[in-house]
């Protein structure tokens, strides 16, 4: 998995690239969580994530909940069709901030 981060105003956009499974979740958390902890809003661009399993979905939930605790937000942007299907299977499309 690779990633790129861009900054604009108080929003950090994280472009994730690759497949997110149990083997990659710690790596993903290490990218996302410090930004949430710093008090910034996070936009997660998932257009180049073609596969995500329940571990990846757990990271999305954890990020969302962590942001709520910190008074910031995590927006999930440009979700690929295959990942959106998994999010919908988990019935999270109304819970997570999808754009």
């Amino acid at each position, binding site marked *: 998995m690779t990633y790129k981060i861009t900054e604009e105003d108080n929003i950090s956009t994280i472009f994730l690239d690759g497949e997110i499974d*149990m*083997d990659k979740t710690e790596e993903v958390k290490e990218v996302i969580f410090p930004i949430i902890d710093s008090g910034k809003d996070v936009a997660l661009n998932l257009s180049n994530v073609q596969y995500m399993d329940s571990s990846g979905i757990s990271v999305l939930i954890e990020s969302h*909940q962590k942001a709520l605790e910190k008074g910031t937000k995590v927006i999930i942007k440009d979700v690929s069709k295959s990942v959106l*299907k998994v999010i919908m299977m988990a019935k999270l499309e109304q819970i997570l901030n999808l754009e």
Partner: protein
Amino acid sequence: MTDLNHIEKKAFLVKSSSLKDVRTFCREVFEKLNIEQNLKDELVLAIAEAAQNIVKHAYKDKPDANEIMVVEISLVNKEMKIAFYDMGTPVDPKKVKHREIDNVKPGGLGTFFMQEIMDAVEFKDGKKPWINHLVLTKQL
């Protein structure tokens, strides 16, 4: 989808870095079987969740065991069976359940995904040397 009957199996080291190889194996088999993309994605997810459970739960107490798990995919008379064999801690099927889907929290979704995608998710008796034998079934 092909009408031919087909069986393929492969062994993988029980570790999280093998999960990508499990998915690659499944995708290659489903490609040969001409399974359409949507169904292929669902089946790969169900299989990957089952393999993940083996790594995460059956080998929780022996992460460096260097042992193998076997994944066997068969399509016979349009019935897809995916069998998993491992020698980890015995699984008590009664304790395998997903979290309530409305109780949003991290974890507990893997089994839910398997049950949503497949017609049946069953633990069978593991024949020696195997301890656990999980079978996922779906009529295609």
